[in-house]
């Protein structure tokens, strides 16, 4: 980089150890990183501020085994997950040196702000050059090479999806006529055959729903789950046939079938977004991570989603317990968005919340736009844990929502709050509430 780094002392919110370990591709990497995160192993370490950005670049040289010295650098300002590089031969990404360096920095055990060795500046210059090239490339590829061919492809896909959904509808109706009682004996093949057919017809998200039902018939209460899902699948087929739906419902139908939502032409106006919570899940051999954000002024709900193959870590573009001043690019389908530009990040006070009744109202409204909704973020103000055999979250009026079976017993929530009324961010799902984040009596966020 040609310009000198500014000589101002910058104050950046250092990450917490949890934030760093959230980047680890697996638990072994986290452990290995903790071993590497010793000041003695880092003859060179530090961070440098980059002009116009709040997040620093962290760098270090780590003595590896033998005489090897690895150069490690992390650009925390990179949109999405931090950009990072290490000269070690590890195939883990990020490797233990990157994580170890970040741990060191998070604990304040690095040597503090400095420009660092020559190679840091060189790396940054290369990064910038690559980013500029990518920007030019993206601009070029934005316009389809052959509009006519693209249109033909789109038409063909529409036909395929219509065929697939018609088959699905017939398949559902046949089973409803013959009775569901025999389903548990059929095994996975029954579901996989239909799911594969739907994949061939390019209705991927419908296929995933069908495949998931294969496992459901082994669980108690399966007839309820299967009938509800059959009904919703049939509703989806019906929805696809109708062209005259309200635009948001239409967008939801298409998204739930598997059509990629088109990004809106321009990012939403710059705004401060409160990060409400994070949920990690596994979907079809992938590790998924979703963040729920809420616009501080607009009140708009945004949903950042990232995936990684098994062994990798989904990106964390934002961190729980913070507010990001950013421009989000929404997709036309649902609330899904991506970070188009990020200006600053600050620790946040607990978000404003409402009653259980408020939460249910917003859930009902969201269901009207998307009947297939699986999770909707709600923030409860002064929520307290309640218990009567099962576990509940109750608001001051005594109204209570049940916690999801996979969130109980909620020991961490209980430990952090001590049963006191707290701000609680959660996902409301058809089966109950999934607590995501709780703010303790001192306003600190704890991920659940």
């Amino acid at each position, binding site marked *: 980089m040609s310009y000198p780094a500014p000589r101002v002392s910058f104050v950046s919110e250092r990450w917490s150890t949890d934030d760093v370990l959230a980047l680890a591709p697996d638990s072994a990497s986290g452990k290995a990183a903790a071993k590497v995160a010793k000041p003695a192993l880092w003859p060179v370490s530090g961070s440098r501020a980059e002009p116009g950005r709040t997040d620093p670049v962290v760098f270090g040289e780590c003595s590896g085994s033998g005489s090897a010295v690895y150069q490690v650098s992390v650009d925390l300002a990179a949109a999405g997950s931090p950009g990072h590089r290490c000269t070690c031969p590890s195939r883990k990404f990020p490797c233990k040196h990157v994580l170890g360096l970040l741990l060191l920095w998070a604990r304040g055990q690095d040597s503090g702000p400095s420009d660092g060795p020559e190679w840091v500046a060189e790396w940054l210059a290369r990064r910038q050059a690559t980013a500029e090239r990518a920007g030019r490339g993206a601009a070029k590829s934005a316009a389809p090479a052959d509009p006519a061919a693209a249109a033909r492809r789109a038409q063909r896909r529409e036909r395929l999806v219509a065929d697939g959904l018609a088959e699905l509808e017939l398949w559902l109706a046949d089973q*409803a006529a013959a009775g569901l009682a025999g389903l548990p004996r059929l095994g996975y093949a029954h579901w996989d055959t239909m799911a594969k057919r739907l994949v061939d017809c390019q209705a991927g998200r419908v296929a995933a729903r069908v495949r998931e039902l294969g496992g459901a018939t082994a669980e108690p209460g399966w007839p309820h789950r299967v009938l*509800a899902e059959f009904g919703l699948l*049939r509703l989806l087929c019906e929805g696809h046939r109708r062209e005259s739906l309200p635009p948001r419902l239409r967008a939801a139908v298409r998204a739930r079938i598997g059509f990629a939502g088109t990004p809106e032409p321009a990012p939403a106006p710059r705004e401060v977004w409160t990060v409400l919570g994070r949920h990690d899940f596994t979907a079809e051999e992938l590790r998924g991570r979703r963040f729920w954000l809420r616009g501080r002024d607009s009140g708009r709900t945004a949903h950042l989603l990232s995936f990684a193959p098994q062994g990798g870590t989904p990106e964390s573009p934002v961190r729980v317990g913070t507010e990001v001043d950013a421009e989000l690019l929404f997709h036309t389908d649902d609330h899904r968005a991506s970070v188009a530009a990020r200006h600053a990040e600050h620790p946040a006070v607990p978000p404003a919340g409402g009653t259980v009744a408020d939460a249910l109202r917003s859930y009902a409204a969201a269901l009207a736009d998307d009947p297939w909704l699986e999770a909707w973020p709600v923030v409860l103000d002064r929520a307290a844990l309640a218990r009567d055999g099962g576990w509940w979250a*109750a608001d001051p009026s005594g109204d209570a929502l049940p916690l999801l079976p996979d969130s109980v017993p909620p*020991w*961490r929530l209980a430990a952090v709050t001590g049963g006191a009324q707290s701000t609680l961010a959660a996902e409301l799902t058809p089966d109950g509430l999934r607590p995501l984040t709780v703010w303790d009596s001192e306003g600190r966020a704890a991920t659940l």
Partner: protein
Amino acid sequence: MNQTTPASAWADLVSTALVGTARRAVPEPAGLPSVPGADPARTLLDRAAQATLQRRAGLVPRRVAPIDPAPGESAPVVGAAAARRLATMLGGTGVDLLPEWLALAADTGHRVPPESLPDLLARAERHAELRAPLARVAGVRGAWLARLNPDWAFLRTGSAPFDAARWDHGTAAQRRAHLAVLRAHDPAAARELLDAAWPTERAGQRRRLLEVMTDGLSADDEPLLARAAGDRSANVRAEALGLLARLPGSRHGAAVAEQARLLVRPGDGAPLDVGRPEPAPETAPLLDITAGGDSSGSPVSADRRRRDLYWAVVVQTPLPVWPGHLGLDPGAIGEAARTAGMGDLLDALAVAAVLQRDPVWARALIGPVARRHGFDEDNGIDPRALLRNGRGGSTDLAAALLNVLPEGERCAAVQRWALAAGAVPPGWLLRRPWTDEFSVFVVDALRGARPRNGTTAWYTATLLCDAAARFMPPEFHDRLPCDEGEHFAVLADRLRLRSTMHKELL
């Protein structure tokens, strides 16, 4: 969840779906819009979708009373650095330092961050040795949290209500935890409970329930222990006898002493005379432990049985009985037993000193026991003997005796032996905190040892470093000859880590 669609209407839809619309008419639940269409199967699916969405969108909250919140705290939470260290350990890195961390946090008057409590409690559920230190740092919040989960009853103190259902139907571990809770605040009730349950418990559980009695052992426990000492299972009998031996002034002790006086007598010419052990009618059921076979129930030879009886009598006899009876002080008794070749007697006395936690006897017997096993303080120790017996051998007895002694004396004894032998002191002998003086000595010894890979000295030094990593005061990290071998560097790292850990908690 309460639903606005009556549950029965949804149940009707489900039962129709299970049978199939070919065989049953589609119900028309009230409150759902009618759907057009002639195909009953599709109609059923449409109604199912309607009912499902009505249930989801029309969810009615229940009224559930919140749990009683935790009372306020008084102790401060550990600092940020210490909290991070704890989180790292709970994540699996350096978790072997957790007991030390907990003890330090307690000693400095701190409590753990609340969010770490579930992990800590779950870990203490599996590792009993963490329970006492955790109880001291869990704070009010920890006690409150533990009350929400019966599996964490071990953390309860004071007047925790006893949960009879948990005792009757809990898992083996839960039942032991409950017994421990009850014993802590109402020992008499705990004894009654155990006494009543005794006949129906399995042997393994009987032994472990007895282990619960170890804490707060008192004379009142004697009848129950006596009953357990007559148990069908040899393991239960051994556990009960071990506990009985620790009871000072028990009737059992007096009865055994009676027999001991007949068995070991002042010698005629020689200092000691050992008789032929015969089961006395009063104590036979207790001490003749292999009368009904060994721990697996197989019969044992008459010789073995007699030897076991002899051993049991000596171990169970209150140690203060001996000097008066034999007219010798403890050291002389030990030396006499050794020189007369009565190795069993010497070892049994040593075990008694360990069980009865008697430092006077431990101090007196260490010399004779060590010499019996190849150490000779006066003529130098054969280091090969030390190594040969290093792990799990009979020199464990010497180590056990050392551990009965106060810290300074313990370290000084090992130092004396090592000096006499001109060898590196065997670290495994000292698995308790080291004094500064002893640590200085060990550092010097390590520096002089210059061990090379694969040699006996290297092996000894490695064992010593293992022990030092845990028991040497952590300030010694910068006084190690790190340039003399990798294991010193590893040790220094380890001590530095502990030193940082200590500083974080100050």
